């Protein structure tokens, strides 16, 4: 009985100290924002690794998700004789939900895991320790550019995802299934509000970007410096990021669209 209680207590303390370390890590890295002594170069390099290289998977998934939405929406809406509403359906689904969420999940899988593994290996091979020995703060040199690159890249990727998805939906709906293009766009324009839908989607993707890159970089920084530790940390990154994104998405949706 007391053993179980002690185990629970130990678990709680570990959890709390991890949260504390993660918070200290984030504030340390953010204060050391890139900018001074070639920090901008580092940021651009990370933007390339995190953003540009994720573009292929984001564009392809966006296109196919948009096309699937077009097909599914058409089969359902044509039962009610209102195929024109397909534009509205595709745009709202993508801009409000699927754009930010699916991009964040892909981002966690494609960029987050790579970040964790990279920083974990740096830790295992004691590159971080040697940076510290040279008087370079690894939080500034290694963590900060990656975090900031994640914050910037994620909203950009989500916007591209939504735009490509809507284009894919138009491809299927208008060019293939023959929905009239004018009503496709006008039903979309009359129902999508820039501030309520597009900007809220942008805020969502920004939040997801912060959470995903924070989890990824911290897991790498905090991992057990062995090969097993790195693999466990990479797994944790993907699992925690996905759960955090889906959970936060519910909270954000409730706040933004739930009418509270």
């Amino acid at each position, binding site marked *: 009985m007391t053993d179980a209680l002690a185990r629970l207590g130990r678990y709680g303390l570990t959890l709390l100290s991890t949260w504390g370390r993660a918070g200290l890590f984030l504030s340390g890295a953010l204060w050391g924002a890139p900018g001074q002594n070639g920090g901008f170069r580092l940021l651009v390099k990370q933007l390339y690794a995190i*953003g540009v290289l994720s573009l292929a998977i984001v564009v392809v998934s966006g296109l196919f998700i948009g096309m699937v939405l077009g097909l599914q929406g058409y089969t359902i809406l044509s039962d009610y004789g209102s195929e024109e509403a397909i534009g509205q359906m595709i745009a709202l689904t993508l801009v409000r939900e699927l754009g930010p969420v699916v991009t964040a999940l892909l981002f966690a899988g494609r960029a987050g895991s790579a970040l964790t593994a990279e920083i974990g290996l740096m830790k295992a091979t004691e590159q971080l320790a040697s940076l510290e020995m040279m008087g370079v703060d690894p939080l500034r040199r290694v963590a900060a550019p990656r975090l900031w690159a994640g914050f910037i890249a994620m909203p950009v990727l989500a916007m591209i995802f939504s735009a490509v998805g809507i284009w894919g939906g138009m491809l299927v709906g208008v060019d293939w299934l023959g929905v009239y293009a004018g009503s496709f766009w006008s039903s979309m324009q009359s129902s999508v509000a820039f501030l309520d839908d*597009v900007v809220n989607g942008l805020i969502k993707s920004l939040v997801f970007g912060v959470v995903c890159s924070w989890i990824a970089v911290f897991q790498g920084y905090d991992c057990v410096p062995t090969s097993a530790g790195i693999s466990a940390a990479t797994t944790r990154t993907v699992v925690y990021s996905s759960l955090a994104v889906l959970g936060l998405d519910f909270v954000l949706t409730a706040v933004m669209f739930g009418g509270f």
Partner: protein
Amino acid sequence: MTTRTTEILVGLFMVAGCAALLFLALQVSGLAPGARTDTYTVYARFNDAGGLSARGRVSMAGVTVGHIREVVLDPETFQAKATLEIDASVKNIPSDSSAIIRTSGLLGEQYIDISVGIEEDPMKDGDVFYSTQSALNLERVISNFASGR
């Protein structure tokens, strides 16, 4: 890969993101900065506004000629008061025209259709529609039919 190539690719990435945002703003949500055409405001009172909402369209003979700015309850008459913004280019709507709430398709959004009257005088800024026709409420139609009225 040289630093320069990386920088160019990142620049292109950022431009693509801005272009996507612009596409979402202009084409998807129909935001048109600067293209805010001159409009004038007229009002319409309805006993039942149904699902009419702001940003809905106002049409004449099926052509969009303006949009709904807001739909509020008039606390004195307990009617719904819709504020319509009509494009200034459509300046000769007869003053005895009526505003009718219609639904596009079975599930589509509701919009206001202006049924043209015969009066010579046009409607001016601030005018109120002389006659209106409320939203068709299917339940009410069925209950009227069932009770034989």
